[in-house]
């Protein structure tokens, strides 16, 4: 295959990665933006989404499409419930202190990972794509499901944008993000908002995990890469900027796809980490971030 088609393939792969990453990182960005919590367990919510998708689709093996739809609807809800429990019994008890919650979410990461290892096992398990067709280009064929992933991710991102900017809950979230203490003085139950935002962040990660599982199989360690890349995206985009998160997801997703295809995935991660270092030195608030309050 010559350079042009090779590059096209890399861009298409990068675009799929970028959309999945944007959905995952958006969850992390919302949680940090509103709660000021660095959720180190975010990747595990992604992993749980994928593992639960395997379990839910295995309940209806004769109808993979409906099994997958069931997974897409139920897995994020289950993961959101786990996040609410974690918020109630871990984060709330630490009074959402930034340093303490970093340590606590590291603990949560290991608890979730080891629980999945114990119950689900160490195997990587495949999930059948709900829609299976190929797009035939003159140079190569391409999985149609990947376009479905892009479409679903666009819908999720639009829904998140609408929710944050156009709804009553979005307004409550933004007021809480700006000044939680004063939000309480206007009747906003900040702890409940935090629980909802933590669940929403986890649900976005879980939805990304469900979407991606037909492409890369469910495995108990699969949350680590999305966690690293989400941090890269959130730092480059700006710690509380949704727009920045989306733009940075595209920069990182595309560069990761292209560098991985032409060179190696390891080099792609090294360059992403270098980009984070450069942003931290020259624009510590990220490309689109405001001043951290």
């Amino acid at each position: 295959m010559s350079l042009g088609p090779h590059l096209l393939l890399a861009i298409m792969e990068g675009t799929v990665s970028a959309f999945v990453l944007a959905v995952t990182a958006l969850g992390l960005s919302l949680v940090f933006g509103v709660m000021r919590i660095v959720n180190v367990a975010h990747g595990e919510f992604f992993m749980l989404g994928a593992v639960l998708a395997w379990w839910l689709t295995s309940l209806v093996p004769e109808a993979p499409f409906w099994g997958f739809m069931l997974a897409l609807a139920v897995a994020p809800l289950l993961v959101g419930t786990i996040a609410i429990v974690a918020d109630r019994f871990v984060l709330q008890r630490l009074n959402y202190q930034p340093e303490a919650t970093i340590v606590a979410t590291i603990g949560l990461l290991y608890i979730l990972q080891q629980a999945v290892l114990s119950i689900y096992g160490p195997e990587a398990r495949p999930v059948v794509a709900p829609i299976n067709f190929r797009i035939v280009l003159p140079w190569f064929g391409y999985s149609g499901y990947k376009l479905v992933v892009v479409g679903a991710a666009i819908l999720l991102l639009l829904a998140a944008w609408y929710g944050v900017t156009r709804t009553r809950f979005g307004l409550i979230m933004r007021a809480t993000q700006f000044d939680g203490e004063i939000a309480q003085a206007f009747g906003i139950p900040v702890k409940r908002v935090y629980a909802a935002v933590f669940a929403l962040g986890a649900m976005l990660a879980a939805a990304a995990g469900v979407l991606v599982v037909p492409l890369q199989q469910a495995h108990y360690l699969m949350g680590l890469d999305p966690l690293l890349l989400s941090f890269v995206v959130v730092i480059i985009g700006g710690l509380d900027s949704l727009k920045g998160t989306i733009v940075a997801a595209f920069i990182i997703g595309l560069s990761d796809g292209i560098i991985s295809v032409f060179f190696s995935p390891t080099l792609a991660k090294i360059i992403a980490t270098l980009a984070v270092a450069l942003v931290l030195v020259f624009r510590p608030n990220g490309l689109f971030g405001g001043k951290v309050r």
Partner: protein
Amino acid sequence: MLKVDRINCFYGHVQVLRDFSLDLAPGEVLCLLGRNGAGKTTALKAIMGLVRARSGGITLDGIDLVGMAAHEVPKQGIGYTPQGRRLFSDLTVDENLQVGLMTRAKGAETRERVLGLFPLLRERLHQRAGTLSGGEQQMLATARALCLEPKVMLLDEPTEGLMPIMISKILDIVATLKEAGVATILVEQRVESALHVADRVAFVENGRTAEVVSPDHLRADPSLLHHYVGVGVRK
């Protein structure tokens, strides 16, 4: 109406309020005066439930506020404009008002009534709060609190950094609220301005209510101001 009875509040291990007490009748304006760090702002925060009273009682019309979650306190009818305004600067004027209206069932009516008091804000509805002038920001902070349709208003240094014309507008609003039967606790550094609207003046010293006097008494005995605040007042 509002009764604060011997409350004690702490920041960590540091005690800020010591047996702090006050009471407020409907339509009354009580001015809190005292040096920086005396505990005036903490007293307002304690009433709002933003700082927990470890002991003592706070009641509004007989309802206990101390055991109440902070977000339930404004629903009892207490509006708060904090020191430094603390607007949601990234939100528009309209969105700031919507936050104020969160607890109101008939939000549209209340919003119109509040905008009637501050017509300038109507022209700025879609402007981000952080881009308003200092006076406009104070108007918005007051309007946002009035959206709660409060029985009691807590105003923490509302004239700080404002031009004289804005100061008189803010004090006019306090007088209007008083006529409407809304009680106000006013923390103020501009003593002379505050005395125009205050019914009583409470001096706060070392976290205690040291003395409560009438404005006339204070004008007659300016040594109180020298003692508790370190400034004088024109007779």
